[in-house]
C-alpha cells in the first residue's frame, strides 16, 4: 500500500511517501505564489525518488494552511491532527507535540494512539514563529542558518523585551549600539521567542515526552533556549520539518484501511 502526505505550509510545501506505513521518500519546494504548483513539485520529487508514479498512490491526504489548494488529494487532516499522529509515530511516548513553523506555532496534546486531545495555537502574530528569527537575523545582519550556532557561543544572556517583530527590530539595533556581542544578541532573540512558545505550551500543560517539530526545530539555538525555558528534555526527530506531511501520510494509511 502506497500513501502520500502533503503539508502546504506558508513558506514551503513538504511531501512524504509511505510504503506499508514506512517512509520511503520525501520532497520539498518553496510555496511561492502558487501553492498548488509547489505541491505538485514536492510530490513529484518524492515520487521520483521512490521510483513511483501518481497512479501507484492509494490515498493522498493534505494538511497545512494551504491544504485546500492541494493537488491530487483524496482527503485532508488538520495540522494539529497531523502533528499528533506523526509525533507519536516518531516517539511512542510523546504526549506533547510542539510545532513551530514559519508563520505559526502550535502545541498539541495527544494520547498514546496519536489522537489529538487538545491544542493551543499562535497565529496572527509573527513574534511566536520562525518569521521572528528571520526578521531578527536580518536586523543583526547574520545569515539565518548561522543564528543558532552563533547563539551557542554566548557566555551570558542579555534579555530583550521583544514581544513583537517590529519592536524587536529596534531592540536589536539598540543592543548593537550598546555594543553587545552578536552571539549574546542572537541568544537573547532565541530566548525571547522560546519564552513566548513556552508560555503557550504551559497553557496546554507540559506532558512528557515533549517533541519539537516544524522547520524551526532544525535551529540549534532555538532548541537550546526552549529546553531552558521548558525545563524538560525536548525530543527532535531527524526530519522535523516533514512531521506534518508524515502525519498526513499516516492518516492516509488509516483511511485506505477503512475503505
Amino acid at each position, binding site marked *: 500500500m502506497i500513501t502520500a502526505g502533503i503539508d502546504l505550509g506558508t513558506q514551503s510545501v513538504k511531501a512524504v511517501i509511505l510504503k506499508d506505513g514506512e517512509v520511503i521518500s520525501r520532497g520539498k519546494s518553496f510555496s511561492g505564489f502558487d501553492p498548488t504548483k509547489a505541491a505538485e513539485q514536492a510530490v513529484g520529487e518524492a515520487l521520483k525518488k521512490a521510483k513511483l508514479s501518481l497512479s501507484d498512490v492509494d490515498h493522498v491526504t493534505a494538511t497545512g494552511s494551504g491544504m485546500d489548494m492541494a493537488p491530487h488529494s483524496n482527503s485532508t487532516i488538520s495540522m494539529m491532527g497531523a502533528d499528533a499522529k506523526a509525533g507519536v509515530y516518531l516517539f511512542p511516548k510523546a504526549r506533547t507535540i510542539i510545532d513551530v513553523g514559519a508563520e505559526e506555532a502550535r502545541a498539541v496534546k495527544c494520547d498514546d494512539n496519536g489522537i489529538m486531545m487538545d491544542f493551543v495555537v499562535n497565529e496572527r502574530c*509573527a513574534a511566536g514563529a520562525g518569521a521572528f528569527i528571520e526578521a531578527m537575523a536580518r536586523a543583526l545582519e547574520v545569515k539565518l542558518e548561522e543564528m543558532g550556532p552563533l547563539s551557542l557561543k554566548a557566555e551570558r544572556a542579555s534579555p530583550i523585551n521583544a514581544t513583537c517583530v517590529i*519592536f524587536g527590530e*529596534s531592540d536589536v539595533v539598540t543592543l548593537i*549600539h550598546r555594543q553587545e556581542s552578536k552571539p549574546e544578541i542572537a541568544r537573547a532573540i532565541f530566548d525571547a521567542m522560546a519564552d513566548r512558545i513556552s508560555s503557550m505550551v504551559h497553557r496546554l500543560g507540559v506532558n512528557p515526552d515533549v517533541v519539537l517539530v516544524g522547520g524551526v526545530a532544525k535551529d540549534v539555538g532555538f532548541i537550546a533556549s526552549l529546553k531552558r525555558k521548558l525545563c524538560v528534555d525536548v525530543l527532535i526527530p531527524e526530519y522535523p520539518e516533514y512531521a506534518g506531511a508524515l502525519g498526513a501520510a499516516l492518516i492516509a494509511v488509516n483511511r485506505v484501511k477503512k475503505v
Partner: protein
Amino acid sequence: MKETPKRENAEYWRWEEYRRVFSEKKWKNKDIITAGVDVGSVGSKAAIMIDGEVYSWGIMRTGSNSPDSARKVLSWAMEETGLRLDDLKYIVGTGYGRVNVPMSNKAITEIACHAKGANYIWGPSVRTVLDVGGQDIKAIRCDETGRVTSFLMNDKCAAGTGRGMEVFADLLQIPIEKIGESSLKVDEEPPPVSCTCVAFAKTEAMGLLRKGWSKEKVLAAYTHAMAIRMGNLVKRVGLEKEFVITGGQSKNIGIVTRIEKALGVKCLPMPKWRENGLDPMIAGAIGAAIFAKALYEKAHKS
C-alpha cells in the same frame, strides 16, 4: 506665535518636527518656570510652563540616545524665548526614556502625565484618555483633577501604534501625515483584516494589492482592525465620557473616526494645534510640567 517647520527628507514614515512659542506671554525671573520632558520611543516632547500656563513646546523624533534627545528637544522648546536651562525652576522627565532625562529633578510615569496633561488641554470633564504612542497603547481613566484612577496598557504588539503606522506608510508609500485621510478614501468600508500583525502585513498587504485592492482599501481594512483593538482596550478599562485621544495617532483621522465608531462616542475635538493651540502629542510633557510646578511649590513651602 511662531512655527518653525523642520522637515528633513522625503521618507514616507518621517513626520514633521515642530514647535510653538506663545510669544505674547512674557516671563520674569520670579515666575515659576517649569518644564516637562517626555522622551517617547518614537517622539520626544518638551513643554515649558510659566506659573502653570503653557509658554512653549516642541516635538522631535527620538534618536538612538535618550539623554541627547531630551537635551535637544528641551533646548528646542526654549529657542527664541531667551530662557536658559538655569531659568527652569523644576524639570520633570516622563515617557519611555524618563530615567534617561539628565537635567530632570524627578521622573514620573507617562500614564500620570498624560491624564494630567489631558485635563489641562481639554478641561476637567475628561474621564477617559486613550494614549496611542509610538510603541504602546494606554487606556487611562481619571478624575476631574486629572488623577489616574485606573489604566490598561498594551505594549506587546505594534498594531495601531505609531511605529506600526510608520511601517504602513513605507509599505504603501503614503506620507505618514496623509495616512489617516487616505484610509477614509474608500467608497465602502472594507471588513477589518483578521490578522493585524504588522510584520505579516508586509506580505499580506502585498497579496491584497495584487488581488486588485487599492492602497486606500488596504489601509482602511488594517486601520479598521486596529481601531477595533484600541476600542476594545478602552472598553476593558471602562469608557466614561468625556473621551479624548492623545499621542501621535490622535492626528490620524482614519484611526480616530473608526475608534469613535467602535465605541459609539465622539472624542472631544482636537485642540487647534496648527493655528494657535496645544498639540495632543504634548499632553504627557504638559502633565510633567504641571507636576514640576507642584513639586517646586511643595519643596519651597517647607
